[in-house]
């Protein structure tokens, strides 16, 4: 116990010392309002920050005291969450957590926190569907010294999915009919073409298996009808980043979509991935990468020719493109790549379900979801490629494993964590300082980008302990498991949720409490290693 008191004292000490030290204050004002915008050719009232979508890019230097005054001019509460930033719980911006009450209409809330890190992050509303309705923006935290990632040009590339509908209506429509937005449901024609290509027997069996489960093979995206944007611009408006041939260009990709995964490529350019979720990684050369809602990737490219290069981000349901251009001057436009075929889900996307009485070939057992249509010979980024650029400080073995089952009922549009919606769930309690493994198991047929507030997790991606990459979002593909490690070194109440907005709004969220617990309260159930002792220092198991 004494050790933990020391930790607290040390922590308080650090705060007092650091706040008395000289630090630069960087201040911003954000005014949140519902104002008319015209992106798709139709004037719509959306949620804007300082009148625009996206909200302004906030730039800080590591060590800054950030002071952000957020004024709510709407007639409903709002809030802003600083996605990926390590900060005190009360500044994290989730109403109902850490005594934060949201920002009522007409009021100004001042967020104050220290910038303790560097990298590309973002911010968005954490109230109802305001993020879908336009409230998102980027954050750049520059190193106080020289940036190890050197580039002549530096652009933020915010991807988003813009709907002409209001988020409340989208939520209602999904509850009315969960396939409301499905535009690629299997037809009788699809069945007969399967009969032709696979034979009647196989086609019938497949249809029977999916029908038996009452699930759809085409469920890649719950919401459609989006216009996909780059930095708030439609493909027609074509956001353009200027370069001189031979220059090194840093692109900070942020997926600020509410619901859309993208496959990103720049035909003609190799991308060197240098940062993931704001944290520097050892460079990986790729031709394309898949980015989930709320993930960020920084890449370096070196366009050599005097021409336009198209940045193409294609949603995985292939219903369009977010398009931007890298060009040597304004007004240039490159070719728009051909849409790739839409993947079909397979039995392999159905983990945790009883498939013992089904007849399946090895091809059926593969994941349909992960088929990106990457051309042969091209390299797509994989989580296992990511190696932290620094050296992880905490390489302790986890003291215990916490199972996190991602579940849902697609028919009723209910999404759960460990079989509970947020409205019914008990928090996950972690002891301050403890090292745990979170083992996510996806029992559904959709991928879930799981986001933990307040702390980075380390992907257990097969790299050595000191090289595991830090992430604030981890994608758990359909039917699969993925584990991460976590050092619970930030006290507070932290939201953990699926970053598909309408999954979160339907219940896929839980609370993680990091606090100093009495020894007898440390949960001991379901622990795989049976640890969780109050002695601290879990290194020798």
């Amino acid at each position: 116990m004494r050790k933990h008191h020391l930790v607290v004292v040390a922590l308080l000490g650090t705060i007092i010392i650091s706040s008395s030290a000289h630090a630069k204050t960087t201040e911003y004002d954000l005014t949140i309002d519902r104002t008319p915008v015209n992106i798709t050719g139709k004037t719509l009232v959306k949620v804007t920050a300082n009148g625009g979508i996206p909200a302004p890019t906030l730039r800080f230097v590591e060590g800054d005291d950030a002071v952000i005054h957020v004024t709510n001019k709407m007639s409903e509460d709002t809030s802003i969450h600083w996605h990926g930033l390590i900060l005190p719980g009360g500044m994290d911006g989730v109403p109902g957590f850490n005594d934060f009450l949201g920002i009522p209409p007409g009021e100004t809330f001042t967020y104050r926190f220290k910038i303790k890190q560097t990298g590309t992050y973002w911010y968005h509303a954490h109230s109802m569907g305001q993020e879908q309705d336009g409230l998102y923006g980027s954050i750049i935290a520059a190193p106080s010294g020289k940036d190890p990632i050197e580039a002549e040009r530096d652009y933020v590339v915010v991807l988003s999915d813009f709907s002409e509908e209001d988020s409340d209506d989208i939520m209602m429509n999904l509850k009315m009919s969960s396939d409301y937005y499905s535009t690629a449901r299997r037809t009788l024609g699809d069945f007969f073409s399967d009969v032709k290509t696979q034979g009647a027997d196989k086609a019938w069996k497949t249809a029977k298996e999916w029908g038996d489960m009452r699930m759809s093979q085409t469920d890649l995206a719950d919401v459609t009808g989006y216009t996909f944007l780059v930095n708030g611009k439609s493909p027609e408006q074509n956001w353009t980043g200027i370069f001189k041939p031979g220059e090194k260009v840093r692109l900070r990709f942020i997926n600020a979509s509410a619901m859309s995964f993208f496959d990103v490529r720049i035909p003609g350019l190799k991308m060197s991935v240098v940062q993931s979720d704001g944290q520097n990684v050892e460079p990986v050369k790729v031709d394309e990468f898949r980015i989930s809602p709320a993930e960020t990737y920084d890449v370096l490219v070196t366009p050599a020719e005097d021409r336009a290069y198209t940045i193409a981000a294609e949603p995985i349901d292939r219903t369009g493109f977010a398009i931007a251009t890298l060009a040597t001057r304004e007004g240039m436009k490159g070719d728009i790549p051909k849409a790739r075929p839409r993947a079909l889900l397979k039995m392999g996307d159905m983990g945790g379900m009883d498939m013992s009485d089904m007849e399946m070939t090895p091809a059926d057992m593969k994941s349909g979801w992960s088929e990106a249509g990457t051309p042969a010979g091209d390299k797509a980024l994989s989580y296992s490629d990511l190696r932290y650029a620094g050296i992880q400080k905490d390489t302790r073995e986890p003291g215990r494993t916490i199972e996190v089952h991602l579940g849902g009922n697609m028919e009723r549009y209910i999404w759960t964590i460990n079989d509970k919606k947020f409205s019914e769930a008990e928090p996950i309690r972690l002891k301050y300082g403890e090292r745990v493994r979170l083992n996510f198991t996806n029992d559904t047929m959709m991928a879930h980008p799981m986001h933990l507030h307040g702390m980075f997790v380390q992907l257990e991606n097969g790299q050595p302990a000191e090289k595991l990459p830090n992430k604030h979002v981890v994608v758990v593909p359909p039917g699969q498991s993925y584990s991460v490690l976590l050092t619970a070194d930030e006290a507070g109440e932290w939201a953990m949720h699926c970053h598909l907005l309408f999954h979160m709004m339907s219940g896929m969220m839980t609370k993680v409490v990091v606090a100093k617990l009495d020894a007898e309260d440390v949960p001991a159930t379901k622990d795989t290693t049976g640890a969780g002792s109050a002695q601290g220092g879990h290194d020798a198991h």
Partner: protein
Amino acid sequence: MRIKIMMIASCCTLSLAQPAAAAADNIKDKAEELRQEHGGGIFHMFMLETDYGRNEDGSVASWDWEGWVGTDENKLWLKSEGELTDGKLAEAEIWALYSRNVATFWDAQAGLRYDVKPDSQAYLTLGFTGLAPYFFETEAHLFISENGDFTGRLRQENDFLLTQKLVLQPYAEANLSAQEVPEQEIGAGLADAKIGLQTRYEITRKFAPYVDVHYGRKFGETSSIAKSNGEENDELVGSVGLRLMF
């Protein structure tokens, strides 16, 4: 509270100006709001199908309005259906049920059904509704009339897509009776059944015109009663209609 928590974060960073009690209330309200907004919300769905058509004898107009308001678990389920033949109200039912989600795909229901026509009659209603394997939308209900008569109704339908907008929906319905109900001209056993095919074009998911053809027939004793009254014991109806979801 089983667990004593010392929130390091809150003692370091928060200095609320409000009186502590009011602040605690606010936090409670906010936490409740947060639950409402993440899985505890109230939604609704209503579907109205109205159509007009003909059988061998004349015109038939019908409506079927059905839907719910409530949470994922607890809903008020409302339903009204009826028919006008040659402009005269022939059948009209109004239902109000409490609907409880009891399994992934199923709700159990209990409440009242009230018939305005052909006879004014109230029924205690028990049943379930949901999605059976192979996507059969299913409704099964048991009715106990004021006189203590037991009857039941089973309905199933399924959607087959020709395109993303053009949908074939075959459906079947059967009415059963545990005993003879002379005042309603119903015999014991399978009383009547209907099979039909609705072909709709979903201009949007909420607005879909359709054509409908169905064949209905009385069976057994019910059929004999109809015949002895000089009535037809079957009918073929073709109609056009509109389906709205709201």
